[in-house]
């Protein structure tokens, strides 16, 4: 390492503050989930939604009044994407003809020129099952990651990569609970994508930590981890940068249906980037990762070189 290089930024110096910050976020998120809960979308609760396209922007109050007059209860009328598009959501999950009835009702009530552009009906039982399956999916994903990383690296690394994932998922959920944004299937998909993304980040940092533990013969774990984060920080920021850039494009151009998906991922990427630096490395410090944890078992006749993880032979043939 040339002497001219400036001292690496002391990432680990901030670990206490970061820990407090993370713990605060997690506690706050769990509290929000407990108190306010998630605003589940129709995919999970069951219900009916109708999307209508008016020729001219209608008054939402008139639509509400027309629906109330017709004896409907528990409905939400809102603009969807533009002021001529109306989305009506209802809790009713038994009548599968409701969409047609409502569009007929509004046509005859207001005489307005409108078109039924889309409708959705989800039976309540389907929603209930989906909720269970989804939770299970998240848990399986975390378990598989734990096993794979535990095998490829070492058990402490497995823990140190799964905790940040849980951290990210909980915080994204917390934000959704805070703002009461609709949590539907696409958001769930985004959540799993966040796991994938954050994991990607965490693994890259962990990989460098492993390499440095093997390569650098001197130095405390503290220094080694600090140095590893320093070496990977540009990559972490650039990859987050390109990902955020496309997600912003998705948010602004992808249309209403995909908005919450994009938001969940944007929050997830930001939190995931932070957690791969602080939460993951912090966990390794707390668990006291040592050089011995990462030593490749000495093989007979192996040279010093072989302690470094080499690309597999087939890559060189590629």
């Amino acid at each position, binding site marked *: 390492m040339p002497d001219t*290089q400036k001292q690496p930024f002391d990432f680990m110096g901030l670990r206490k503050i970061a820990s407090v910050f993370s713990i605060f976020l997690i506690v706050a998120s769990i509290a929000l989930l407990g108190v306010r809960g998630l605003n589940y979308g129709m995919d999970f609760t069951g219900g009916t939604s109708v999307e209508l*396209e008016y020729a001219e922007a209608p008054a939402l109050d008139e639509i509400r009044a027309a629906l109330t007059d017709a*004896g409907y209860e528990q409905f939400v009328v809102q603009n969807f994407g533009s002021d001529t598009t109306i989305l009506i959501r209802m809790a009713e999950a038994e*009548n*599968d003809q409701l*969409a047609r009835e409502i569009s007929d009702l509004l046509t005859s009530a207001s005489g307005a020129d409108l*078109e039924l*552009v*889309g*409708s*959705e009906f*989800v*039976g309540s039982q*389907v929603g209930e099952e*989906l909720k269970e399956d*989804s939770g299970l*999916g998240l848990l*399986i*994903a975390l378990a*598989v*990651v734990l096993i*794979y990383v535990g095998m490829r690296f070492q058990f402490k690394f497995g823990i140190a990569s799964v905790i940040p994932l849980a951290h990210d998922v909980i915080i994204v959920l917390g934000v959704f609970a805070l703002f009461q944004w609709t949590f539907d*299937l696409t958001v*769930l*998909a985004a959540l*799993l*994508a966040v796991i*994938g993304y954050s*994991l*990607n*980040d965490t*693994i*890259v940092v962990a*990989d460098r930590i492993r*390499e440095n533990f093997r390569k650098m013969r001197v130095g405390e774990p503290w220094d080694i981890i600090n140095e590893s984060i320093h070496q*990977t920080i*540009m*990559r972490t920021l*650039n*990859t987050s940068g*390109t990902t*955020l*850039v*496309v*997600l912003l*494009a*998705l948010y*602004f*151009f*992808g*249309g209403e*249906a*995909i908005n919450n*998906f994009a938001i969940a*991922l944007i929050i997830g990427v930001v939190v995931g980037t932070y957690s791969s630096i602080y939460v993951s490395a912090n966990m390794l410090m707390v668990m006291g990762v040592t050089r011995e944890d990462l030593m490749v078992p000495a093989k007979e006749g192996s040279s010093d070189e072989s302690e470094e*993880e*080499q*690309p597999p032979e087939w*890559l060189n043939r*590629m």
Partner: protein
Amino acid sequence: MLNKYPLWKNLIIVFALIIGFVYALPNFFPDDYAIQVTGARGSTEVDQRVLDQALGALESRGIEVKDSTLEDRNALIRLSSSDDQLRARPAVQAVLGNNYLVALNMAPSTPQWLRSLGAGPMKLGLDLRGGVHFLLEVDMETAVGQRLEALSGQIKRELREERIRYRGGDVQGDREVVLSFRDTEARSEAFDLVRRQYTEFLMDESSEDGEFLITLTLSEAEVRSIQEYALEQNLTTIRNRVNELGVAEPLVQRQGADRIIVELPGVQDTAQAKRVLGATANLEFRMEARQDTSSVETEEFSFRDTPQRNARLERDVIATGNNVANAQQAFDENGQPQVNITMDSVGGDLMNRATRNSIGRRMAVLFIEFRTETETREVDGEIQETEKRVVEKGLISLATVQSALGSSFRITGLDSIPEAAELALLLRAGALAAPMYFVQERTIGPSLGQKNIDAGVASVAFGFALVLLYMLVFYRGFGVIANVSLTLNLMLLLACMSILSATLTLPGIAGIVLTVGMAVDANVLIFERIKEELKTGASPQSAINSGYGRAFVSIFDANITTLLVAIILFAMGSGPVKGFAITLCIGILTSMFCGLVVSRAIVNVVYGGRRVEKLSIGGKLANA
């Protein structure tokens, strides 16, 4: 350190990219609006004459025809706009009549030379092309219940034939049949008989109030196989019915243990589709009760068309519509309408056993319909609507058994030709083995579909452009290389999706966008590594080599774990989530290939095999 790929390696990469290019290409030809003409029945041929008739109808209305082709069993007429398409359909249907089905379709305009290579565009999901999506649930309780009724009828009939006297035999709960006997002797004979012939039951003996009972319980395995059969049978029936709707490229697929997904692209009238799909009807064959049969063992039904006429039938079901293999309307010697029925082997067997001792008696065909009914009531001045599931059973025929029936027999005594034709159709088109209910439904209008496509394309385009810019600013020359490999990556992704004929949905497009953002990760990792190597004083050539080599492990681990998560997403997810997971999975694989291999090949071509003083990779240190 030369950084040269051998010629063969470069050739393989170029070859892969050419294949990718060819198979991605069809996606850039816009689909034509088209109408598709098919025969209403399998036997109806669509020939040149039919096509000419259709074209004539379009010409007389001034609808411009772009192209028309006659394929194996259908004709495709390409039109120039969506309006023409909507006007053309009723016009052609009117000319061709009810023997032909005319459906709206979108026809890919892939050029012939590409089609001959088997290349075609990705399929668009319903959210992009418009249509209806249904999720139907099979009522498994009823499926098992019906089977249990049929088995209990069969067992009792056999006991009678073997002259084993029993006092009663009732279905109890949803899994059990309880037979009761006067003495242990009869019971043990019956026990042996049932054990020999009905292996689907678990048996248990007991006695109660001087009655000797056998409790037959359906085994778990049998319940599962009944449910499996019910689902498969319903799938087949739904497929037949969907074909009758005349929808181009419908999808009928089972989901899980008891659900069926039906997707009908282009269909807007959900009411009609639901009427046809949801007509849950079945048939039962039963004997008319003898005068002396106790009322416990009989049931009274009225006729479907003349409700004032009644008939008293035995409770035991001989066979159901599920056992009918074929049915045709025909005429008997006196010119009276009749229906010729062919049963499958099980059905033939049952029919023979039931009728050989019943010549001269009358056999009834009972039509059973499951419907959802809306009931409107006034409660406290408020009108309340409740949904009820009703079962309606009505007689459609009651005919005298002339001789012992086998697997082929006929039903006579039908009033009219239409009645006979309807009965034949119902028997043939296949009845549902168990009733089904709609549990999910989604309608996407064509305008919404187009809006989604536009939004998807816009977000891919903007995301892509921004990433290109980002990489160019940060990595200069190497940024250009990353951008070229990213572009190729997108091309390969499209090609793979097209080759696998995966369905593209809006969440799928989101997956592509995300892939674009994350795909450059491999290159970012490599480039940062190269910069590091340069910092430590390595020569440009060896920096490139070790940059690629060392970054590999990180890229591999990171991508494999992400791939695992994507696969879980695919396995657990439904509908929209699956579409997202597919593009994510394929995207990860193509990103690895492009990020590692293709970008390396480009770097080798640009820098390899010569002395290089410095690399254009951005950042101060690299250029110092």
